[in-house]
């Protein structure tokens, strides 16, 4: 059995609120861009950009980032991760970059994303938006914008489903024991 942490309506509201917070914190959308981490972060970045467009009348550019090549756990994995597309079709120099990921957990993916971004340019600043912050950080990283903070057990699995992949938007929590079956 899994527990639904967020449903379609809550996800929509969270994205709406985060869009407002991003605009407020950055005092508008000047030099703002969103970078989604493959894959879920890319969907969320696109949705945030749509919401920001609806509010401000300007759509910030959206890039997609795959962090596989910057991970620190390649030697611990059985299989090399499949490399997805990195596409940042604009300069990051002097931009205010909001990195978007779906689940913030150990922080290691964000560490990899920061290194990857630094190889692409020199942003003015980098902020972090995440749909779910489930705790258990292993690095000094925190979210600037979080859809929901959810205490979890370290061995749980949090999975996000997207309408872009033909599912109903929702966030589910699976307990560790049930993953075996």
């Amino acid at each position, binding site marked *: 059995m899994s527990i639904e942490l967020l449903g379609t309506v809550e996800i929509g509201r969270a994205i709406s609120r985060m869009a407002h917070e991003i605009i407020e914190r950055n005092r508008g959308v000047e030099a703002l861009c969103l970078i989604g981490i493959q894959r879920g972060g890319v969907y969320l970045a696109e949705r945030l950009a749509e919401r920001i467009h609806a509010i401000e009348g300007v759509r910030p550019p959206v890039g997609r980032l795959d962090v596989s*090549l910057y991970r620190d756990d390649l030697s611990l994995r059985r299989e*090399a*991760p499949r490399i997805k*597309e990195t596409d940042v079709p604009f300069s990051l120099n002097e931009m205010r970059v909001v990195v978007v990921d779906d689940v913030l957990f150990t922080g290691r993916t964000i560490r990899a994303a920061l290194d990857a971004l630094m190889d692409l340019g020199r942003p003015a600043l980098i902020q972090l938006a995440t749909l779910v912050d489930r705790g258990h950080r292993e690095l000094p990283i925190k979210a600037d914008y979080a859809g929901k903070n959810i205490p979890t057990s370290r061995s749980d699995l949090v999975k*996000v489903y997207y309408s872009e992949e033909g599912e109903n938007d929702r966030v589910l929590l699976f307990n560790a024991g049930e993953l075996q079956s």
Partner: protein
Amino acid sequence: MKKDLLGIRELSAEDIQHVLDTASGFKGVLERDIKKVPTLRGKTMVNLFFEPSTRTRMSFELAGKRLSMDVANVSVPSSSVVKGESLLDTIRTMEAYGADIVVIRHASSGVPHLLSGSVAASIVNAGDGFNEHPTQALLDLFTIRQHKGRLEGLTVAIVGDVAHSRVAKSNVYAMGKLGMTIRLIGPPTLIPSGVESLPGVEVYHTMEEGLPGADVVMQLRIQKERQEGGFFPSIHEYADLYILNSRRLAMARPDAIVMHPGPLNRGVEISSDVADGERSVILDQVQNGVAVRMAVLYLLAGGWVSSGTSGQQEELASSA
């Protein structure tokens, strides 16, 4: 889990597609200002070349360096091999230095296969005798896919000294597995007998018969010393019959691309106007070679699982 890349013969169609898909990600890295990623930091690669090579060796070296590997180059004239060290001792020494991947080129067919069972390091075949040159075939396929958007159903003419070409052999194996048609064109002395029984292969002895309808024309390098072997009467006669010039290229499909593994013998197997023309993708092949070799090194060092079922577990693990 795959340890080595010995030849295309050992790969499935899915394996080949997996390498090409992975290489697409690395092509993006090569197009950036900073053409380097930290992925294989701490890993060591040795280029062990028993035959002269400029481009393949440099391509592997750049591939390794752009993945942040430590790369050492060993070429025969400066190695202990000339002092009589055996192949196995040489490669065990490389391993004792901490080599995770050994890229090997040798004049004898089967040397990479012989060594692969004796060391824990991954062996990558960079050309063994008349047998195979798998990374060249992979970069050729990657280049064809880049320009044609697909591979299955395409017709590729491979022209020249097929019998002595490890490039041609690896391509024939790969293209057959991917559902492509391979037209081998050359004098009967330079086409291996019985080759037409391999999947997808057709044999022609003239360009006029073989080129019409081809989507890709791949010219092979003719080695001038073959003339002394009696495989053809003279280099001039060979050039008359098999050079790819603009008149002959017009017989292939109007959107056909021109390929060559290099180095070029201009005026022998390819004319300069075709080699430098707008349908030539020869320099794309060179660039793509680095991306494809990065993909091979990445997969071998990071874990190359051939079955399609492991992907789902990976998906679950990465979303955690």
